[in-house]
């Protein structure tokens, strides 16, 4: 599913100080991204953490490695652990200087990538978790909130007291959407369910994640979830005998009893289609959401999750695959104000920019 430009254009008008370059005509874009031979293509990837982080970046790297089988003559390079600072700009400029025709950042870099894209109009840029679209810069992201909702349904059934604990990194829209969707899923079967959130200011900090998990269990939570690249709080859940759901990849080996499921990612198809389009001269900058079942899904259920609960949650998943959206009003925020009126449905773009916590969530924003 791709996003139409009007929503983006309204956003762009908000960027008061950003230079508002006129969108180039289709003809210009076509000549700019002309077909290219496979052996001449250099694709550069910029990662936010090491490629063996066991989570987010590893899933991207896995997809990139798979690319090499489809395009054996294509050259690629990557840099890992790129800081969110002006050094990111330098690295992206270096990609351009080394002759890359496609630069793909697997995490958000905002201005740090946009400034480079604006100066290298002949190079195609893609930013995961980005929002900018220009003549040569697009973005892609996964609609992970549907998978989180499915896991939330199971969470409410598995939890004895309806108190969920969430280990968060930063209160960014992606994290807010993940926490909100999980609790909305839980509340669909247990309206009394609540969620307590602890932010640890990192995506990868096993020690802090474990401490946060233990603190959440101490405060009465018996189901842990979160958005971490490491299995830190999963191990705590195993030791303390509570349930846990994860992100990025299958982590059941770390806690065979506690493991419920995970929001699993698969970028392989998207990367393959993107590279194929660039080779054919068909690539155009746009925003792309990878949908449930096409890049993001819930993982195979944990061994101890009762089959009846698996079936109930999967029935919700099937409804979503058929087009139903659970993000339909009335949805209240944590102050009790109705933010999404009855009958209205939040589309993916709204959810992607979620900046308030739903009723029942505490400690996130």
């Amino acid at each position, binding site marked *: 599913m791709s996003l139409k430009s009007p929503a983006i254009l309204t*956003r762009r008008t*908000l*960027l*008061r*100080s*950003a230079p508002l370059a006129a969108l180039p005509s289709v003809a210009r874009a076509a000549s700019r991204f002309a077909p290219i031979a496979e052996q001449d293509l250099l694709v*550069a990837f910029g990662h936010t953490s090491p490629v063996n982080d066991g989570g987010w970046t590893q899933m991207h790297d896995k997809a990139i490695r798979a690319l090499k089988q489809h395009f054996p003559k294509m050259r690629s*390079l*990557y*840099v*890992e*652990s790129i*800081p*969110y*600072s*002006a*050094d990111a700009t*330098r*690295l992206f*400029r*270096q*990609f*351009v*200087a*080394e002759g890359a025709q496609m630069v793909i950042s697997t995490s*958000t870099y*905002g*201005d740090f990538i946009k*400034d480079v894209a604006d*100066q290298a109009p002949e190079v195609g840029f893609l930013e995961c978790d980005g*929002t900018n679209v220009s003549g040569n810069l697009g973005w892609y992201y996964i609609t992970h909130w549907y998978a989180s909702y499915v896991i939330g349904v199971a969470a409410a059934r598995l939890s004895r007291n309806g108190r969920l604990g969430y280990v968060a990194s*930063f209160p*960014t*829209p992606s994290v807010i959407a993940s926490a909100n969707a999980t609790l909305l899923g839980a509340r669909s079967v247990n309206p009394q369910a609540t969620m307590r959130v602890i932010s640890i200011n990192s995506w990868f900090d096993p020690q802090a994640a474990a401490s946060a998990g233990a603190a959440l269990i101490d405060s009465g939570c018996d189901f842990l979830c979160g958005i971490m690249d490491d299995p830190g709080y999963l191990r705590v859940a195993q030791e303390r005998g509570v349930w846990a759901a994860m992100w990025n990849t299958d982590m059941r080996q770390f806690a065979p009893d506690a493991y419920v499921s995970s929001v699993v990612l698969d970028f392989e198809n998207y990367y393959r289609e993107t590279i194929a389009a660039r080779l054919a001269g068909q690539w155009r900058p746009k925003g792309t959401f990878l949908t449930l079942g096409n890049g993001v899904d819930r993982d195979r259920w944990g061994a101890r999750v009762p089959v009846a609960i698996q079936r109930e949650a999967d029935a919700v998943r099937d409804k979503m695959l058929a087009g139903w959206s659970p993000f339909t009003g009335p949805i209240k925020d944590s102050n009790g104000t109705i933010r999404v009126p009855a009958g209205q449905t939040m589309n993916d773009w709204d959810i992607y*920019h979620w900046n308030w916590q739903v009723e029942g969530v505490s400690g996130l924003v």
Partner: protein
Amino acid sequence: MSRRIRLAVVPARRIFIGRLLALGFVFVVLAVVLAMLGLKLGMVARLVVTSTFGTKFGLEDLALYMTPLLMTGAAVWLGLRAGLWNIGAEGQFLAGATAATAIGLFLPASALVSLPLAALAGLLAGALWSAVPAAGRAWLGVSEIITTLLLNFIASFMVYYLVTGPWADRVTGAQVSSERLHVALPVIHGVVHWGGVLGLVIVVAMGLSLGRSRFGYELALSGSNPTAAHYAGVSVAPRIFVALLFSGALAGLGGMMEVLGTVHRLQGGLAHGYGYLGIVVALLARKSAFALIPAAFLMAVILNTGIVLQTLQVSASSVLAITGLLVFAIAVSDELAAYVKLETQK
């Protein structure tokens, strides 16, 4: 018969030769490590040289790296001139950037007004950030090494608080950043802004004025021998106070240039270790302010090399290792250069 003696004043030629050898040593170690990592040295060297000096982007990045390094280098250098170790350039840099950001965010004025004001705010904030350590050192004898260093962490946390709290960007959702500033330093070419030129002017002016003025002489005197300075009728404490204040102001101005020229947002990773790298630049420059320019250039080349190495999957920490090795090698070579063989008659 011969014995070795240590010279009190080492001729510049001996220092220069020693440093060339030290640089050569660093290159050899780097080459061995890269070869052990399985990289082809010729390819790495060609990539470093062509992408640093052979492309527009490389040259621009070099200039952008040099600008903050010149300023923090000048800040540390000025302190050393008065015998003081300003380890707090990083914090003063952030303080200056924060003050400049406040002007850029909240002052609805034209660039003609807000740019000089932002520069002034950067200077003042940097000076203010070093004022307490300066006063403590000048009148109470509190080690400025500890106080300036610890204030770095406070400055860093202050910036993180601002950019995730009251000043957090709510327009584009940029992480750990303020909104994009409404004012920017004018650009010379590409992304290179006038901050670098201003930095060069300041360094040259500092070298000329300190070398010829009474204040500069008294500063150096206070630094090299406070007791002697006291007996020569120089009141040392005010000199020390002012020197650290100016040192902080220079770093603060550097922060203003970085935020208004290069990054355009206040954000967590803004200082990038420039304050600490400024110590290296000042050490490389030794006693000459003019030498800050080639020193900052060398440091910028090393940082840029780090960028190139990262695209070859060499860790970003390699830059720190190279820098550390360079400082180590130069410290040893400077010391060795002081020793001469003295031939004595039987």
